[in-house]
């Protein structure tokens, strides 16, 4: 296949319009089927028994009483999920996380599971399982866990990435370092240096739909899994490997997904449901409760970050340095590494150094959350940048413009940037009317920048043309926020037909080749590339059929606006053939017409955003309200601008929640205290203002239409933007996220007491 992904400027007919999404009516009428909305004949209810201890040896599990309870059809423990990971450490962690093998490593860690004829019996059965624990000392705080006196979570962990292998095990699994130049020299050149330490608490993606699946394993080794996931192909591979199934015999169908944000990239309950089904010989439905979602899915890291930035009087940053400690839960991760890569990505720096430490804690295994690891690093860096601008007496936007990365800049994490949007977003912010709007007493304005890499990855798409000329598009990237509409627009654009004739679906794992999951803002970027490629392959066939009909060389047939056109004066008597006409005749000209594409979508353009935020702080209570918010972000090319705006707004809202109120609160006993939406406080409708958006389009040179991922970057700036706004409103620099009322009031009181 000789697909050319390079950007070529063109006028769009469909792309950039705002039609209604193809899955919309099902979703407003209650017909759309999510994870828990599917049932199979003879299905059982699965439930999981979870450790109440943060850290404990599992000495024994007695399931005999539960097995004897009438209506119980299967009880499983780790023994029913034998280790088939064959030395693959990452897969072994996933296995151990699905069902604790020797130790329970966090409050909520699965230790056993049952399948019964109804939920009441399943719940009763869980109470009859007797687990004997030997409780061990635990550690949940990232700084305490990094300390050499901390209880060891895994005594086989010796920090990687050090010059010498350490003599003793610790909770730090890995050290990573990025940067270039000489920071010592850079700081020596600085007239002003700002040095600050920051902390951020652990947050959850907070998708409204809990994890849910229906698993059915047959006696012949075939199996079906219906599941809400961001990546059904990845789930298939993981589940097949853990259960010892052949991947092609496990068909995974992705349900409609009720939010993921990175949290549905990882298997937890699915291998358990499959193991229960295998043992019971019946389908098993397993739905997590909200409490289980908080305690036992994959929240983000808690962090502790030190930042140091120096600048000359003229506003040039001479050196920047950060040390980042990120919690990973009880298993190794690369979260600090990503934070260390993103921390200074917005700036053009001669001397920069970032060091990341991955820290194990007795909390759930960290999973991705929308631009994972970047918001915390940006909070620390962008807060310090604001402080430095203040010390220099420079405007916060001008200071950033002066130091912004641009095309040709070597990024702090290594590569050299192509055309990028940081400068343009800053210029747009500088001239945005929001920046000039008046503020009242106790109100303040802040701004901050954010960066995200974006990913591409393996993608496979089918485009089938029906005999009536309508088009079905089968993609393998799960639609998390309207991508079926965007991809239908792309197919319509490429074929030259109307959007209304295209219907996009997400195909199951048996109907399409492998696709990476919808993460890294890749859904529209990579599947649109594959859709363009598939459409071009279909067009090639359409041209061949027209050439055959006309009996002329295919080279003389062009494709324009949905029609085959014979080019050249000698064909003056041949009127164009429409896609519909060619499709209608396909049975007689060689059979069905389809385009297929499989590719690795390289070159996802990096993404930048700058946000402006106004807050009002009640100085007597520390309560903070966001009263105005503006997002400016580069989309490359907005395929469906309404859904691009939706991504900007949604990311900003999640960032606002993170900044102000959301946090995992653990008790001294290592148990999570706020495993519900009552006390894990995500923003409600009355908490937020309208969120204004401005889409910039700096084409990605590596995509035919210039598309960049848009989903994640918008969660990166809000933490810092709000912290900067609070600082400008009431004069306190908040260094601990969330900036909850007790924290702000304490900071104000400390300030007032001098």
């Amino acid at each position, binding site marked *: 296949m000789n697909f050319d992904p390079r950007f070529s400027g063109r006028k769009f007919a469909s792309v950039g319009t705002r039609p209604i999404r193809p899955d919309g009516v099902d979703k407003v009428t209650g017909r759309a089927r999510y994870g828990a909305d599917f049932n199979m004949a003879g299905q059982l209810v699965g439930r999981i028994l979870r450790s109440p201890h943060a850290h404990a040896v599992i000495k024994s599990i007695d399931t005999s009483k539960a097995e004897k309870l009438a209506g119980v059809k299967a009880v499983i423990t780790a023994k029913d999920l034998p280790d088939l990971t064959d030395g693959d450490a990452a897969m072994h962690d996933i296995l151990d996380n699905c069902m604790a093998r020797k130790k329970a490593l966090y409050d909520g860690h699965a230790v056993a599971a049952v399948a019964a004829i109804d939920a009441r019996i399943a719940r009763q059965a869980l109470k009859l399982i007797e687990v004997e624990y030997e409780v061990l000392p635990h550690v949940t705080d990232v700084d305490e866990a990094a300390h050499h006196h901390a209880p060891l979570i895994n005594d086989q962990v010796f920090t990687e990435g050090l010059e010498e292998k350490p003599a003793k095990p610790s909770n730090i699994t890995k050290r990573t370092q990025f940067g270039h130049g000489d920071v010592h020299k850079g700081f020596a050149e600085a007239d002003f240096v700002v040095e600050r330490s920051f902390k951020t608490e652990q947050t959850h993606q907070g998708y409204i739909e809990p994890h849910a699946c229906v698993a059915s394993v047959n006696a012949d080794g075939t199996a079906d899994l219906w599941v809400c996931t961001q990546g059904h192909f990845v789930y298939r591979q993981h589940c097949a490997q853990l259960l010892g199934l052949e991947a092609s015999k496990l068909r995974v169908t992705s349900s409609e997904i009720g939010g993921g944000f990175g949290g549905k990239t990882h298997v937890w309950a699915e291998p358990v449901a499959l193991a229960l089904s295998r043992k019971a010989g019946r389908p098993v439905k397993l739905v997590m409760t909200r409490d289980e979602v908080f305690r036992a899915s994959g929240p983000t890291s808690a962090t502790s970050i030190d930042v140091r930035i120096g600048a000359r009087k003229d506003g040039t940053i001479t050196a920047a340095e950060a040390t980042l400690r990120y919690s990973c839960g009880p298993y190794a991760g690369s979260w600090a590494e990503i934070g260390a890569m993103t921390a200074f990505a917005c700036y053009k720096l001669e001397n920069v150094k970032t060091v990341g430490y991955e820290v194990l804690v007795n909390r759930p295994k960290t999973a991705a959350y929308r631009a994972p690891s970047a918001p915390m690093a940006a909070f620390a860096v962008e807060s310090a940048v604001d402080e430095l601008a203040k010390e220099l007496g420079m405007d916060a936007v001008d200071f950033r413009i002066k130091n912004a990365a641009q095309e040709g800049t070597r990024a702090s994490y290594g590569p050299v940037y192509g055309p990028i949007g940081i400068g343009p977003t800053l210029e747009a912010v500088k001239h945005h009317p929001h920046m000039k709007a008046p503020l009242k007493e106790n109100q303040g304005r802040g701004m901050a920048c954010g960066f995200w890499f974006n990913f591409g990855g393996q993608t496979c798409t089918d485009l089938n043309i029906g005999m009536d000329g309508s088009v079905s598009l089968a993609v393998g990237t799960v639609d998390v926020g309207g991508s079926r509409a965007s991809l239908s627009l792309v197919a319509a654009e490429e074929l030259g037909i109307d959007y209304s004739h295209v219907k996009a679906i997400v195909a199951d794992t048996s109907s399409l080749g492998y696709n990476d999951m919808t993460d890294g803002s890749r859904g529209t970027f990579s599947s649109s590339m594959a859709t363009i490629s598939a459409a071009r392959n279909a067009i090639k066939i359409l041209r061949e059929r027209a050439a055959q009909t006309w009996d002329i060389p295919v080279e003389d047939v062009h494709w324009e606006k949905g029609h085959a056109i014979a080019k050249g004066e000698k064909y003056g008597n041949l009127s164009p053939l429409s896609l519909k006409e060619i499709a209608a005749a396909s049975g007689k000209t060689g059979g069905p017409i389809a385009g297929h594409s499989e590719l690795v979508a390289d070159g996802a353009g990096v993404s930048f955003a700058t946000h402006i935020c106004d807050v009002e702080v009640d100085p007597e209570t520390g309560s903070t309200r966001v009263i105005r918010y503006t997002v400016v972000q580069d989309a490359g090319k907005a395929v469906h601008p309404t859904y691009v705006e939706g991504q900007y707004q949604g990311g900003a809202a999640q960032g606002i929640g993170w900044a102000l109120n959301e946090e995992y609160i653990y008790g001294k006993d290592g148990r999570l205290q706020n495993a519900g939406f009552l006390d894990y406080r995500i923003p409600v409708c009355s*908490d937020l203002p309208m969120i204004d958006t401005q889409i910039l389009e700096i084409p990605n040179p590596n995509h035919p239409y210039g598309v960049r991922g848009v989903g994640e970057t918008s969660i990166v700036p809000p933490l810092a933007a709000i912290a900067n706004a609070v600082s400008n409103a009431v004069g306190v620099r908040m260094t601990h996220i969330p900036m909850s009322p007790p924290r702000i009031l304490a900071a104000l009181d400390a300030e007032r007491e001098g």
Partner: protein
Amino acid sequence: MRYIRPLSIEDAVGELAKAVGPAAILAGGSDLLVRMKGGFIEPELIVDIKRIDGLGDITETAEGFRIGAAVPCAVLGENKAVRKAWPGVVEAANLIGSKQVQGRCTITGNLCNASPAADSVPALVAAGAKAVVAGPSGKRTIAVETVPTGPGRTSLAKGEIIEAILLDKRPEHAGDAYLRFIPRTEMDIAVVSAGVNLTLDEHGAIKTARVALGAAAPTVLLVEEAGQVLVGSKLDEATLERLAKICSGACRPIDDKRGTIEFRRKVAGVLARRVAAIAYKRAGGK
């Protein structure tokens, strides 16, 4: 487990009195069903009191108002007469949960759930509201502040049901108000809260005052000293400062997932000051 729907208070009391295992009264269910879902209680008997005659009614009597135990807070909020007489009680009741919860929850349930953070309770205590208790040995009327005895515990005996809350008729120049502090704008449990109920003399000086604090101690606190400091004043700055200090001092709060001791103390004072000003204005004070 049994679910029953008695039609008379006598039947309900009788069933509760003879229940062998744990029994639960169901009105709005917004606390009960959450506790059942969490596995915190597994009642043997659920007594749904919503079809008992009169329990769903608000009646205006010569003495004031009688609010049946099954009246949802949304219905209370739509009652113009109660809203006019006791705006603080109604605004407190209407802060419980969401619109969805408002359609179900009741002030009687809020009282009997015995949470120190219950929104309607400080307002009811400040209002001097009374509860009519029906039980195996007849009926009695008690001050609402005597119902909760600790978090999740009440003074009600086995078989007893609160069938109504009574609010007095309002004299001229009276006003009440309730404020709570929550981190968000809706959907949270009060971190700390305050209710104030005032009557004024013809010159605008405070004649009587009751101040109650929520989420500041194991039960809602009636701070008598705070009421006393208001009496005789026209709510000048010095009085408000003293009020705030007394309220902060009266708190015996805890550190928990919703707030710190220090925060609750300080904000109790802030809220008391703010809410007293609202009640004073409602009473016609200037």
